[in-house]
């Protein structure tokens, strides 16, 4: 996992609507990158749903939420609609997992997707905090995010 204090690697990925989004677009604001294994998996659905429930409180602390997985942006759109969430989802699709690799989150074959990791990027684009789940089957409760922001 990328080290706290490092400059966060910039990237440009497509969101669920196919629009290009760069990390540098968030400069001057805090953003929490949520790397997750894949759209429509049960745990990923629970994770993003629960974060959605407390999103107003997270936004109130000046932090934006951005999910990142290796799925296509078409899948992201369908997943977002299925969950009823409005969190931005970015497609780390081609080259597959390139951004997850840059953040030290990628799980190589046979898994081939990002581990469940969080990276808080500060207003200057530096890594302020990270969390890495012990395995992709577990996700950090939202309390862990609030602990990091307190």
């Amino acid at each position: 996992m990328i080290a706290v204090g490092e400059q966060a690697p910039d990237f440009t990925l497509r969101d669920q609507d196919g629009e290009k989004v760069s990390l540098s677009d968030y400069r001057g604001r805090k953003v929490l990158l949520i790397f997750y294994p894949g759209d429509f998996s049960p745990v990923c659905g629970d994770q993003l749903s629960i974060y959605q429930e407390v999103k107003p409180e997270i936004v109130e602390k000046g932090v934006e939420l951005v999910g990142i997985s290796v799925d296509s942006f078409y899948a992201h759109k369908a997943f977002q609609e299925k969950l009823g969430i409005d969190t931005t989802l970015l497609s780390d699709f081609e080259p597959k997992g390139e951004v997850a690799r840059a953040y030290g989150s990628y799980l190589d074959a046979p898994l081939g997707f990002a581990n469940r990791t969080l990276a808080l990027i500060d207003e200057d684009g530096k890594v302020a905090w990270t969390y890495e789940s012990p395995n992709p089957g577990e996700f950090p409760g939202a309390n862990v995010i609030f602990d990091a922001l307190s």
Partner: protein
Amino acid sequence: MNDLTSSAIPPVGPDDHVRGEGEEGIVVYADLGCPHCAADWPRLRESHGRLVFRHFPVASKHPRSPALHAAAEAAGHQGRFFEMVDSLYADRGHVDDPHLWQRIEHLGLDLERFETDRRTDAVQARIRADFQSGIRAGVAGTPAVFDACTLQTVREREF
């Protein structure tokens, strides 16, 4: 601003919904719109001495959940909280308002009072307080079962 940092679940208090007797038992954070909760409910309600039910509606995933939790809370105002929970978990296919009214009539409750109570700020605040205590305790899926202050049950999944 609400504090959602980590904290153990609150001790069982007079405002809690409690079924059964004694000091030993479990605290369950459950979503009335959740199929896993419905599947586990018969086992949960039968297998322990004291059962404490706390609201954990995940509205984005189960859009009807907030209304169902408010309905259960309002039924609780007339002394029939767990009967409403049992009813909702036993039949998840009929949860629109007319179905809720039928359930209230079947339980012999005052429908007019139910309609007023379930829309009050106090009911919404009560449900939100439970939800937030679950968030602070790290609830990451339902049902989440605590024995004393320790999370005991997590559904194991690959990812």
